């Protein structure tokens, strides 16, 4: 092998090197450092004392953490299935070349450009019993206002509805993209066979967009397990911790109590949860595909 040849081989790094450097320094390094920190009693200011799995033992016995895990799972379950279903139905309805459909697509996409701060700002004043939009409507109908954000039973559904409103656009886009890949002549054949709409949907459309469906569910699950801004800004986790999510708890433990080690351990647990759940979803769907 000549020197010139070797040089040419390595020059690929001129192209991939810059990204790899950033990736190593700002993603890989903190990922590994995080595991290391989680094994310490550590504060925000760099003091560290090795305690092995002490933080994880604390997590097992921490009722506040347990409630935040339950809250997070309930929120995820309240958000992901309806979001997926509504987005799919909207995509099916809006997947046509009419002017009305184009306008409505724009309307349903629109909330996705808003930041969580603005979404919660708007929804706080919709939900507040003190002259909020819903309270005004109830008042006009002669009903008492409902304190959505201070009732421990209503706060989680209220955050779920806010999130649904905010998150619809992206899944609709993905489904529309998926639907456009289904070849039109399959539908023609189905129509010739006088297949009903439901049969057409179940036998043709659904199998064709299986991958998109999986992608939407996996992305949304991973996103909602990390739900944070809505809870922090709308309720601060209240009332009485009824809407404290895992990431909100991580935020409180690290930046409120300065217990970086414990907060990092919780973050690692959340990381594990996300990996397990999304891999399980992937495995369930692809296993069925292999069975066919």
């Amino acid at each position, binding site marked *: 092998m000549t020197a010139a040849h070797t040089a040419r081989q390595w020059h*690929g790094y001129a*192209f*991939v090197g*810059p*990204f*790899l450097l*950033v*990736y190593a320094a*700002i*993603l*890989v*390094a*903190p*990922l590994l*450092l*995080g595991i290391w*920190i989680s094994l310490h009693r550590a504060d925000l200011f*760099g003091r560290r004392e090795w305690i092995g799995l002490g933080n994880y033992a604390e997590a097992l016995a921490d009722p506040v953490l347990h409630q935040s895990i339950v809250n997070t799972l309930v929120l995820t379950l309240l958000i992901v299935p309806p979001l997926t279903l509504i987005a799919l139905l*909207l995509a099916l309805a809006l997947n*046509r*070349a*009419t002017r009305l*459909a184009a306008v*409505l697509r724009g*309307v*349903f996409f629109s909330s*996705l*450009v*808003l*930041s*969580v*701060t603005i979404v*919660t*700002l708007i929804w706080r*004043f919709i939900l507040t019993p003190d002259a*909020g*939009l819903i309270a005004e409507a109830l008042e006009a109908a002669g009903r008492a206002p409902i304190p959505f954000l201070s009732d421990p039973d209503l706060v989680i559904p209220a955050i779920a509805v806010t999130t649904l409103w905010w998150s*619809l656009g992206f899944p609709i886009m*993905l489904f529309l*993209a*998926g*639907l456009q*890949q289904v070849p*039109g002549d399959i*539908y*023609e054949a*189905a129509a*010739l066979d006088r297949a009903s709409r439901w049969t057409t949907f179940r036998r043709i459309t659904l199998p064709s967009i299986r*991958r998109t469906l999986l992608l939407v569910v996996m992305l949304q699950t991973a996103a909602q*397990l990390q739900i944070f801004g809505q809870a922090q*800004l709308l309720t601060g986790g209240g009332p009485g911790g009824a809407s404290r999510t895992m990431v909100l708890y991580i*935020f409180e433990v*690290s930046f409120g109590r300065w217990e*970086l080690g414990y*907060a990092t351990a919780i*973050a690692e647990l*959340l*990381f594990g949860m*996300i990996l397990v759940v*999304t891999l399980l979803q992937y495995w369930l769907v692809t296993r069925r595909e292999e069975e066919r």
Partner: protein
Amino acid sequence: MSAAPSSRPLSPLVTGLLLVGAFIMLAPMLWTLLLSFKSNAALMADSGAAFAPPYTLENYRAIFAGSLTTRWLLNSLIVSTGATLGVLVLSSLAGYGFARLEFPFRRTLFVIVLLGLAVPEQAVILPRHQLFAMAGLHNSYPGLILPSLTGSFGVFFMTQYFRAIPRDLDEAALLDGASRFTLFWKVLLPLTIPAQATLGVFTFLASWNDYWWPLISATTSDYFTLTVGLASAQMNYAQTSGLGFLMAQAVFASIPILIVYIAFQKQIVRAMAGTAVR
């Protein structure tokens, strides 16, 4: 194509449901818009006042008259533009490298980059905060921009795009005596402009709306982005005393991103069709 569902007209029932849905989507935004044109005093007295005149521009005037909102807007623009340019440059270079060049450990490195897709922000954000503190990067533009540049998605996306370009083009250019870099810069890169637009818009959107990282990295109000600034404003106000002003800030903060979105909407949707499905 006559049987494809996309050409069937909507039934009246479905149309009705869609219009109700559209109303639910739009009503909160229109209400916000109305509130932003009402004086704070009028809203204090009666928030139902939003639905009737008089309307005023006083809240928007207040934004420009010495509030920090314009500074936060500038910060958001700098951070989002920086993140977008950074992601486009790094992803294009790396995408070309992984798609076209042979070098030691290429496959291994590509797999390591792809594994990054499975790493949620939560797994890195706290230790990253520690590292940035050590490097003195908090409350600075690089500190706000750098975390956006680690996304594996951009590299994956650009690699796929470069792979789809026929190799005949490379060979023709190299026979003409072009260097690897000229080939990349003059021949292939111009062909990836649709991909650049899509990746750019999504990066800009994500960076503009990012909340967790700027919340903990920017602690002085001079370096707040709009999301964090508005969150702090939201916390500082008593429930309704500055409602009109808050809503005007919300509208003001959404205008730039709406412009970007509307300008690129076609490109976004088209590119999603090509990539998201596989």
